[in-house]
């Protein structure tokens, strides 16, 4: 996330944020915009291969101070969503394993989730639950 580009002007108040997509992915921008869509019309413009600009236009009149504050909120929100993406990437496979294990009694799994399985006793049972040993 780069330094403030423009905050607002008399004619067309808006928040503009330049983003380095190698730091925060498009999904994080989209998620932040989703929540800010209550108060702003959100546009995302890809300016270069790894650069984008987000423009937020307030739906109701807002003072420059309010816009500056909301700009900070938006940047924090994007960074938090980027952090969530990183956590998700690291934990998605074990989440699948945990949910599969938790709900395995229901017999609703179409495919065995990827991961490390063990527990010879459980595996020997036709209706046995697999054991989770760790990430894939």
């Amino acid at each position, binding site marked *: 996330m780069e330094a403030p580009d423009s905050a607002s002007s008399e004619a067309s108040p808006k928040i503009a944020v330049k983003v380095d997509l190698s730091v925060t992915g498009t999904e994080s921008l989209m*998620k932040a915009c*989703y*929540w*800010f*869509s*209550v108060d702003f019309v959100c546009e995302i413009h890809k300016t270069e291969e790894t650069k984008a600009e987000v423009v937020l236009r307030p739906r109701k009149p807002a003072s420059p101070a309010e816009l500056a504050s909301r700009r900070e909120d938006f940047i*924090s929100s994007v960074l*938090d*969503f980027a*952090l*969530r993406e*990183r*956590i*998700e990437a*690291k*934990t*998605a496979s*074990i*989440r699948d*394993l*945990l*949910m599969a*294990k*938790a*709900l395995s*009694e229901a017999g609703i799994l179409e495919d065995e989730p990827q991961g490390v399985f063990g527990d010879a006793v459980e595996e020997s049972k036709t209706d046995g639950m697999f*054991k*989770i*040993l*760790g*990430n894939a």
Partner: protein
Amino acid sequence: MARTFFPFENLTPSPASFSLLPFRFTRLNGKELIVNEAGEFLIAPNGTVQQLADQRLDTGSELYRDLKAKQIVFDEASSPLLDQLATKIRSKFDQINGGTKLHIFVVTLRCEHSCHYCQVSRQTTSRGQYDMSTGTADRAIELMMESPSKEITLELQGGEPLLAFDTIQYIVPRAKEAAKANGKHLSIVVTSNLACVTDEILTYFRDEGVKASTSLDGPAFLHNKNRPRPGNNSYEKAIEGIERARAILGYQNVAALMTTTAASLGHVKEIIDEYVRREFHSVFLRPISPYGFAIKTKQSTGYEMDRFLDFYKEGLAHILEINRKGYRLSETYTKIVLTKILTPHGTGYVDLQSPAGEALNVLVYNYNGDVFASDESRMLAEMNDLTFRLGNVHRDSRRSIFLSEPALKMFQVACTQSLAGCSDCAFQAYCGADPVYHHATQGDMYGHRPTSGFCKRNMEVIRHLFSLIQENDPETMRILWSWIAGQTEKREPSLCA
């Protein structure tokens, strides 16, 4: 809140590396609230999540031990405990085990009240064609017994069900007989305004083990304003009915619910004090449901969710103060949410579930045999919106009801785990999906979380409760724990009484 003591593996040397378990987080009053997949949480210093993502947390630190104890991270010493985490997750989803438990029979649409917020298009008291027929009742009982659940609750509702007391007398013994034949435990509750209750009716309920739930919106000026009836004596009738019912059924078998209208908003303390005066030990600060007749009369009853949240917070503070003075009074929604936050268990409360409780936890059998996914679905139908009509008792089986197009459409958007705005929400483990609410208020079952009243209410209530937990005032926490100790909240019977 940290763990009470370290597990054994914490006494071994610090591990060289660690792995992350799935978790979600949000910011809370200068700290980070980290919640694992089973809803266990840690309020950690700012920057903790960044350290976790960067894998640069000191594995010898107390923070690391807390994170490991809460199963937010694991290492070679704690990996065998991953099965335990799966078991905890399964415990949280226990409400989906066994199938539909709550079955609501709308025995009549007739009612002698004309409440502003009533979700039902009430019919006049003389129109018998709006009563459930014996044939419909028989078939509804059959369908109810086809539910795999061993625990069944039958709720008799209206309109005003006591206006069709003969229908109730027909249903109760047959339902009990069917439950016995099918090896099920049956609980029966009647949801009534009690205005026309008699000792004979109450004696019948006592003998048959039927509990009563009624409406009490607050002191007389408010109750009578919200719930008009001929004679403008709804409050007097309700109080008389409550006292009479308590005398015959016993205190513990008579419950009351309130609905918050615009007129209620400035009077939360008076409402709560009325519940204390009437010797109730719980009060449910419920927002008005945006369905049915409530929408038609929105000008007189509606309000913004922000105003309700102020009402709720002021009310909760007042209730805590009443407890501090020695009178035991709980707030029902707080109790439900805290049970999800502070205990390993889910709750049976239908309106805050993922997968959503509609159909999976509750089915409604209308007087004419139509089957709906929830009480709110039926109310939409009274407004000619049949989106959630899953079938009819006379032509459908349980299987065809659950595989109906409306049911399948609803199930597709019934899990917070896969909904935009919910999938990465830190409060996901404590919240729910509500396709019916979002269809009614946004015209879209999926729902748009940033503008959703449901989302706003739950996010703010959960955040408020976490703030209380973070403050960790011993007396407040003692009171909150006393509300949830040993209890699993069931769905509060009904919306209209």
